[in-house]
């Protein structure tokens, strides 16, 4: 796939997503002109782009969709649930067609083609033909009824005159004037074309990647002006475009000649050459123009030529070529297009692997920096230490900015669920409202990509099992309309994503029964609520009495848990019978680098993620067999690293406690020494150690030694459990 195609595919997918979300909004407010406009623009942009890359099957399909949207926008037909559903299906189909393009196939296979034809047939039958005027079936379809030509009617043999000057950045932007002109050719026939390269400077200054070309084109077509303009939508703000309709007044040609950057005489000659003007007309025109320009304005106020040249739009309205509303619409649209382009210009697309490489390098820089710091502090030279501290501050900033590059908002992922919730709830005959909050919360791109599937599963589960059918809800005195919330927020160095439903809640007894049945727990075993709810993440566990095609086959929840764990995250579930269920997914913000707090125990060093450290203190003489202490009147369970990792050697005289907080739980970690803050690149542990509890990864110290990164959450749980049960289980399992 070449570069333009891949850019087109990416952008079209974005457009499709925008179109889909606008369609969903349309369901709630069918008459909102802004939404209608947004949908139309999305479809239109996709069609335009598809035309440029000559993807005909996509153009053909999108064109009909666009016609329907146009009618919708003009109020000829009104949106209802059926039409929205049909248009959603069409947008899905467009997505499939883009997939075909992406796969490099020439055309969609028979099945997909049939699907598309069926959709188009429905659109045609139910909406386009019903709407009154006959349906447009070809991009060049005339819209002659919308415009009055100055001559009183469109004369087919006359030609449009198109004057184009491309901006210097067009080529660099991956757009070739050639593609636009070829696409223009598909709307009619290019009778004559003159290439103008006057803008090209001498060889020394000529930038081979800039575009210097302009074109004067004589174009025969029955397409309307808007259709011709649309050809150039993609370069609209990077090119100067003048379109003169057939049979324009001589004066308008003169206006054009004056508006263009090149010499009037030369342009005149070109116009004559391409047959837009005759030699006599040209001479007459230039003469009038010159004469008029010489007259003082107060003597000839009515002369349009003496007044400052009117805008092209005014000229067109003046001669009734287009209606004023059309011009206005075009202006608004141009502005929107240029706003969008401006926003795009601030974004740079770069391949993810380049970014990963940068992050890797920054990681190495962090390690190397730590080594320099160590050497500097050993050397004991004040100025050297000062210099290295500046360097490490800079490295820190670089690290933060580099990681920031990878951060994306989770909102986009959330918004995908609007459609899922709509479709699935319809299918199940439920009425469910999706409430999204915290969409602006940022997290690492790689995490966002991998969290989609688990989220999807949890959302579907909530709709399928969680929220009851409306009649059941009504019986229980609840609002028949169910409510599903997706929420995200930052919490001490992690991001928390919540999926909350107000459904029936988890059924303790049913889960216990099922777990006993499956041999996951022994009968009569007493478990806490949390432990019971945790059972739903066991493999092969499903309490759904009816297996639907959405969920209930008992595959999934264990996969959800595994996926989340592979991101160093965890998922918790909390539920109240009759009130609903809350799934909380807790994920680290990034997978690469953390700020760590270095501690020592025995011979080795360990790293605690800094944002989890609450405070440090000295361990006052504690009885050996206790593993909790009194922290300002609060019971703080703790674990000793020496015991946990069975480190040899005697305990030092003084021990320190690092108080950490993870997932709302506080715990103490008893270590020998506190060594201070330390930037850490997380190196994952090999597969061999995957079942190791309490260790999250490893890192390399400035001295070249390896330090283990403690998994604080696991340790905190371990400490809490050690306190709950007898202390002999505190060594972990």
């Amino acid at each position, binding site marked *: 796939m070449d570069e333009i195609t891949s850019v087109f595919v990416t952008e079209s997918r974005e457009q499709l997503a925008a179109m889909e979300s606008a369609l969903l909004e349309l369901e709630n407010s069918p008459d909102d002109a802004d939404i209608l406009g947004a949908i139309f623009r999305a479809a239109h942009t996709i069609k335009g782009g598809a035309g440029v890359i000559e993807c005909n099957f996509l153009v053909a399909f999108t064109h009909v969709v666009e016609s329907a949207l146009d009618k919708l926008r003009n109020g000829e037909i009104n949106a209802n649930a059926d039409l929205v559903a049909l248009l959603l299906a069409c947008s899905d189909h467009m997505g499939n067609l883009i997939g075909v393009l992406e796969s490099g196939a020439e055309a969609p296979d028979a099945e997909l083609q049939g699907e598309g034809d069926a959709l188009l047939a429905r659109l045609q039958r139910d909406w386009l033909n019903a709407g009154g005027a006959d349906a447009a079936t070809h991009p060049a379809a005339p819209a002659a009824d919308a415009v009055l030509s100055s001559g009183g009617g469109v004369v087919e043999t006359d030609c449009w005159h198109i004057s184009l000057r491309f901006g210097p950045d067009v080529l660099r932007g991956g757009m070739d*004037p050639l593609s636009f002109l070829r696409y223009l050719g598909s709307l009619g026939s290019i009778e004559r074309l003159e290439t103008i390269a006057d803008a090209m400077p001498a060889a020394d200054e000529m930038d081979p990647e800039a*575009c210097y070309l302009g074109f004067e084109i004589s174009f025969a077509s029955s397409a309307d002006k808007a259709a011709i303009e649309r050809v150039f939508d993609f370069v609209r703000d990077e090119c100067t475009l003048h379109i003169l309709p057939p049979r324009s007044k001589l004066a308008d040609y003169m206006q054009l000649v004056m508006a263009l950057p090149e010499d009037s005489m030369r342009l005149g000659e070109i116009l004559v050459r391409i047959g837009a003007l005759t030699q006599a007309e040209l001479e007459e025109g230039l003469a009038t123009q010159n004469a008029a320009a010489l007259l003082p304005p107060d003597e000839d106020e009515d002369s349009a030529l003496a007044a400052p040249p009117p805008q092209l739009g005014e000229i067109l309205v003046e001669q009734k070529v287009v209606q004023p509303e059309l011009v206005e619409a075009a202006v608004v649209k141009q502005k929107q297009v240029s706003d969008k382009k401006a926003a795009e210009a601030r974004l740079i697309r770069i391949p993810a692997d380049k970014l990963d490489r940068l992050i890797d390098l920054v990681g190495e820089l962090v390690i190397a920096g730590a080594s320099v710091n160590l050497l500097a502090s050993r050397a004991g030279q004040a100025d050297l230490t000062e210099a290295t501290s500046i360097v490490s501050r800079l490295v820190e900033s670089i690290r933060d900015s580099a990681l920031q590059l990878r951060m994306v908002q989770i909102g986009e992922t959330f918004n995908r669920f609007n459609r899922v919730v709509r479709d699935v709830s319809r299918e199940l005959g439920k009425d469910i409202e999706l409430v999204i909050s915290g969409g602006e919360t940022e997290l690492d791109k790689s995490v966002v990509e991998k969290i989609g599937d688990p989220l999807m599963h949890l959302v579907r589960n909530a709709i399928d099992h969680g929220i009851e059918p409306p009649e059941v809800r009504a019986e229980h005195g609840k609002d028949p309309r169910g409510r599903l919330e997706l929420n995200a927020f930052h919490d001490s160095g992690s991001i928390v994503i919540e999926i909350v439903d107000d459904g029936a809640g988890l059924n303790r007894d049913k889960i216990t029964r099922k777990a006993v049945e499956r041999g996951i727990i022994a009968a009569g075993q007493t478990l806490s609520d949390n432990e019971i709810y945790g059972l739903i993440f066991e493999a092969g566990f499903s309490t759904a009495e009816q297996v639907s095609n959405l969920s209930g086959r008992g595959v999934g929840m264990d996969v959800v848990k595994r996926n989340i764990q592979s991101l160093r995250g965890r998922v918790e579930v909390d539920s109240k019978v009759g009130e609903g269920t809350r799934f909380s997914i807790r994920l680290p913000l990034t997978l690469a680098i953390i700020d760590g707090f270095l501690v020592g125990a025995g011979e080795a060093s360990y790293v605690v993620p800094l944002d989890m450290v609450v405070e440090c203190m000295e361990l006052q003489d504690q009885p050996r067999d206790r593993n909790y202490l009194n922290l300002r009147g609060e019971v703080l369970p703790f674990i000793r690293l020496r015991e946990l990792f069975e480190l040899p050697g005697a305990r030092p005289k003084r021990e320190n406690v690092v108080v950490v907080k993870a997932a709302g739980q506080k715990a103490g970690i008893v270590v020998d020494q506190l060594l201070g803050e330390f930037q850490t690149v997380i190196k994952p542990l090999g597969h061999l150690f995957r079942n190791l509890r309490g260790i999250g990864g490893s890192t390399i110290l400035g001295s070249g030694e390896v330090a283990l990164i403690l998994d604080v959450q696991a340790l905190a749980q371990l400490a809490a459990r050690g306190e709950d049960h007898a202390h002999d289980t505190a060594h972990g399992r």
Partner: protein
Amino acid sequence: MTDKARTSSQRLAIVEDMTIYNAAAQKSSLIEALGACDELELDLSAVAEIDTAGFQLLVLLKREALRRGKQARIVAHSAAVRELVDFYNMAAEFGDPMLIPAQEAR
């Protein structure tokens, strides 16, 4: 730069695509080649792909030749080059040493 005493001719064959990706390198090699001789014969028969950036180089070369009083001729076109030059309606201009009439005004 124009050295009227020398009357050398040189043939340059371009074998890569004349697209924007190669435009910068090709620009310098074309201008260099033109600087080193009085008559440059350009063999484009192996150019499989040409885009607007490549086309602009041809325009530039023709104009430079004209400016320096030299000759730059395309002696062989590949199908892609021919098609593009035709589409841009420049076949006549390229064949004509008086490339752009209004240029005299400058």
